[in-house]
């Protein structure tokens, strides 16, 4: 089973909301100082999904990450978890793409790898929360896709995927090669082992530039965008919470119930 996993480096989505800042003049997000970026959480789950398949039946896992200023400690985490190879699409031309230009570049990189049975993406990247790149790659490569998976198993040239729906899940069978997007219901990604971390340190990622995947710089990143950002802003929150206190927590609780009654909320 040859598997490819697309992982994105993002600003830590679990950083406190108060640390989130934007620069409205440039319509850009200002990374919070002192908070290290991370692999987008659903992408770690994608790596985990691939590792589980390799554990069960062997195979090879190639990880691709596209961006600029990719911190090696961050993007090597999938290697430390057990993935076999890492390819970085790292070039100024790949900066700040939209769903279209990102999917296009990743699809071209996957085409260059050529030999694959399964491609994994996260259900959505934890920065722009688009949830489009996986389906986009599948469409560009002409592959079937199953999105929002919580379990993936393969046998006889097919994958059996449990797809999360609003009120449960459905079991979908898909022919391979296929693209699957993964959700947190898959379960916790494994922690890197000491051995894995040491092995990852020694491994050098392959670096691919636009020319290596046969695209013009104008087709990818910002230049290749089809969508324009008119405005980026932070919604204002009212923030006037009335704290109901009391001598004891029980007293405060009674005060809260009484207050809600007075305010006709109850």
């Amino acid at each position, binding site marked *: 089973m040859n598997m490819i996993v697309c992982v994105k480096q993002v*600003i830590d*989505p*679990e950083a*406190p*909301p108060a640390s*989130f800042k934007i620069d409205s003049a440039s319509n850009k997000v200002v990374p919070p100082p002192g908070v290290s970026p991370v692999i987008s959480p659903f992408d770690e789950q994608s790596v985990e999904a691939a590792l589980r398949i390799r554990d069960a039946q062997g195979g090879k896992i190639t990880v691709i990450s596209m961006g600029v200023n990719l911190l090696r400690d961050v993007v090597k985490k999938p290697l430390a978890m057990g993935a076999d190879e890492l390819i970085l699409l790292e070039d100024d031309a790949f900066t700040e793409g939209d769903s279209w230009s990102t999917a296009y570049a990743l699809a071209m990189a996957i085409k260059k790898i050529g030999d694959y049975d399964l491609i994994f993406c996260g*259900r*959505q990247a934890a*920065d*722009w*929360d*688009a*949830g*489009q790149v996986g*389906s*986009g790659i599948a469409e560009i490569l002409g592959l*079937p*896709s199953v*999105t*929002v998976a*919580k379990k993936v198993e393969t046998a006889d040239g097919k994958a059996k995927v*449990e*797809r*999360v*729906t*609003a*009120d*449960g*899940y*459905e*079991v*979908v069978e*898909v*022919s391979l090669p296929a693209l699957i997007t993964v959700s*947190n219901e898959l379960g*916790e990604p494994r922690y890197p082992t000491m051995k894995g971390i040491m092995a990852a340190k020694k491994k050098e990622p392959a670096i691919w530039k636009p020319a290596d995947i046969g695209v013009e710089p104008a087709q990818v990143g910002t230049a290749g965008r*089809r*969508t*324009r*950002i*008119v*405005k*980026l802003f*932070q919604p204002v929150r009212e923030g006037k*919470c*009335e*704290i*109901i206190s009391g001598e004891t*927590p*029980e007293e*405060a*609780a*009674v005060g*809260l*119930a*009484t*207050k*809600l009654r007075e*305010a006709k909320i*109850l």
Partner: protein
Amino acid sequence: MAEYKGVMVYCEAAEGRLLPIATELLGCGKKLAGDLGEELCAVLLGANVSSVAQEAITFGADKAYVVNDPQLGDYQTDSYVAALEKVVKEVMPQIVLMGQTSVGRDLAPRLAFRLDPAASMDCIDLAIDPESKRLLQTRPVYGGNAQATFTYDSDPQIATVRAKAMSPLEADPSRQGEVITIDAGLDPQAIRTRVLEKVPEEVAGIKLEDANAVICGGRGIGTAEGFKELEELARILKGAVGATRPPCDNGWVPDSAQVGLTGKIVAPDLYIGIALSGSSQHMSGCSGSKNIIAINKDPEANIFKEARYGVVGDWKKVVPAFRDKVKELLTE
């Protein structure tokens, strides 16, 4: 070459009725169509959806396109994208709207990439730019920490819309409209998936997304037993229990109880957040609630920035006393 014109709403239906999200989309689509001076049409795909077409018209559609095909019985990416692609190419709408639902999340990007541009997912505001007449698509980004307005120049402009972000029109049974049947023209060979089984998670009581009171528990609840206490409170308030992601991941509650960006969207009259920090991703799913109440032991927790009333304390002490008092007040 023909021009792209009008607004199209992809309407999801179940058991012969439009889903609430479909009526919300029709309400929003009507406004956009009005601003463009063009028509609003509805599209229904399924094995047997003709009966719903009239309902779409009562909720504002000028026309309803119906595609019936046994192969559209279950949602499957390949069959639905192909059928909708055919409808869009025939009708040539300038704007296509869908819900940010299990179906819309899958269908919209795939259709958009097939027709060329990308979609804007999970929009909470849509407007026509008065000058350019293009669609301004506003959506939360960075887990809800910010919002961005997008636009693009090619047609059709495809967007999905968050549940409860838009208001439906009043149903008007006297409204007239044309119902047009389109043949799906599906090639069975091109459908590369098969739905083997559907496994619903049974939830007792009122549905989370319909409840007037939602009691949400977070990581601080700590156990499945803890959630039993919240259920008790929910029963008294005639509401439903929801959760942040950690209780779902830990198996204390079913996954379908998750409220937030990647879970359910709720907008009840009363939302009580208990032992949860109020992460932006969770608040994305409940910030439309009328009254947000917070119970948390940490006075610095972000939920207090969003709440109207709050109690700082251990939920294990606060909740039972609160529940007893509520019970007393409601039986008075």
